[in-house]
């Protein structure tokens, strides 16, 4: 087995450990389900919006909030409890730890976001292409998972609350500029420009296109953008974490 394959295997071990420790907790699962639902309900109550119009946004928010829910706190938490040192004393590269953290966020986000998707199908609302929707959901969850780990890279704190606070400062504005509540085509030109820097925009646009057959960007562009954001976030997360490791451990 090559060195890269061994490190990948270790990433899966770390992901399994993360799921056991951080994700399989009642409050975390409830947060993943309840928070996006209430945010969506707060938006639609009192407005004349059909279920079909509302569900793409709910799927987008669920994937976004669940895949980014715990990721920002893992590295700070493990720094504080010295378990990061424990992992690094083993033959594990920092990049393998980051990829492992990403995987656990991805798995959690994917499992939880299946629930609103299943609800959509249960209500008889069919996407134009189910396989494409599934593929989009997988890439989007990977992208949001990479973003969540990136959010814990700087500052190299060992206080999980600091990291969570900073990640909220990024996550909430992203929801409002990403066409979740107002489709991108209805935004003013400056709004479209801002929306284009958010990965959530492309996922919401993709879901809207696959359910409502109307989107702002071509479907291919949505996929390319999500893959590009995933690559950039993953690369940046690994590099930044490697760069700040010495400071984190000191």
């Amino acid at each position, binding site marked *: 087995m090559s060195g890269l394959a061994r490190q990948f295997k*270790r990433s899966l071990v770390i992901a399994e*450990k993360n799921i056991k420790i951080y994700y399989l907790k009642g409050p975390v699962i409830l947060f993943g389900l309840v928070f996006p639902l209430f945010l969506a309900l707060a938006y639609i109550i009192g407005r004349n919006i059909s279920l079909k119009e509302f569900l793409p946004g709910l799927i987008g928010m669920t994937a976004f909030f669940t895949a980014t829910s715990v990721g920002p706190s893992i590295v700070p938490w493990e720094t504080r*409890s010295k378990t990061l040192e424990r992992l690094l004393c083993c*033959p594990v590269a920092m990049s393998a730890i980051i990829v492992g953290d990403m995987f656990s966020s991805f798995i959690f986000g994917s499992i939880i976001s299946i629930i609103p998707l299943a609800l959509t199908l249960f209500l008889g609302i069919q996407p134009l292409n189910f396989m494409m929707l599934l593929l989009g959901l997988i890439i989007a969850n990977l992208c949001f998972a990479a973003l969540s780990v990136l959010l814990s890279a700087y500052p190299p704190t060992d206080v999980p609350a600091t990291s969570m606070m900073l990640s909220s400062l990024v996550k909430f504005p992203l929801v409002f500029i990403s066409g979740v509540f107002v489709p991108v085509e209805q935004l003013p030109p400056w709004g479209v420009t801002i929306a284009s820097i958010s990965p959530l925009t492309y996922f919401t646009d993709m879901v809207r296109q696959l359910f409502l057959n109307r989107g702002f960007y071509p479907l291919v562009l949505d996929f390319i953008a999500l893959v590009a954001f995933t690559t950039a976030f993953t690369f940046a997360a690994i590099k930044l974490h490697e760069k700040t490791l010495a400071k984190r451990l*000191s």
Partner: protein
Amino acid sequence: MGYAIAVQELTKRYGDVTAVDHISFEVKEGEVFGFLGPNGAGKTTTIRILTGLIKPDEGRAFVAGYDVFKNPVEAKQRIGVVPEISNAYVDLTAWENLILIGKLYDMPSQRLKENAINLLREFGLYGVKDKLVRTFSKGMKQKLLLCMALVNDPEVLFLDEPTSGLDVESARFLREKIVQYNKDGKTIFLSTHNMEEANQLCHRIAIINHGRIAAIDTPENLRAQSMELQYIEVVFNGIVDAREFSENPSITKVVSVGNKMCIYTADPCAVIELLVEYAKRNNLRILSLNTMMPSLEDVFLKLVRGKEVATQ
């Protein structure tokens, strides 16, 4: 016999502070090597460098024949580490912790399970293997950390203050295990504050102070290098004025506590003769007379304080 650890001109700076300053030493295969020093001397920084956690600014280090910085994965594959602060996952069970570490070392599943069971039995943790580590006492956590360090059957063990804060029984148990695993062929790099522990366990000792190696030798040789620290403890059947002896050229210092006197000298034979003469002359009886070799603690303090005086 080769070297299990070889360190050349290792240096680590944090801003203006030089935590480790051009240190060089070797640890032979199968040796228990003690690493002593006061707080902040550079012990933990050295261990962190040798275990691949941090990179030095200068120098090289080889562990089990691998360059720690060029081949970190290969070097780490051959080591086990017990850190200063307990860092098992408290939300996992003892069993889950061992399996996690074994998997990270890429151990075959069957061998990993066998090793884990054997270690948990040996360290008396098998009965609590399915309990969360957060319910463990400090002694149990420390035993588990040693199990985690041993699960991959490493060639070199790094132990950073392994018995610190433990009760007498747990500390003795861990010391016995260190001796046992060393006899089984493992090289042990032991950082400790406990001089008696270092004296008992270590084949050789390095004393580090202000990031520099102040001395490296066997405990016996270190003590022998500080013969001016040996003293004669004498008790007379009456009070004796310490000044009676302090003028003698072969005596360096006299410390008097009650009717007991500690007379520091490099020539104990001459001083004993002097004491016997003095007793006869003054009609006194010698109730007890002991020649005390310098303890490792005395040598350590001499080296550490000597350095401090020199740097002031």
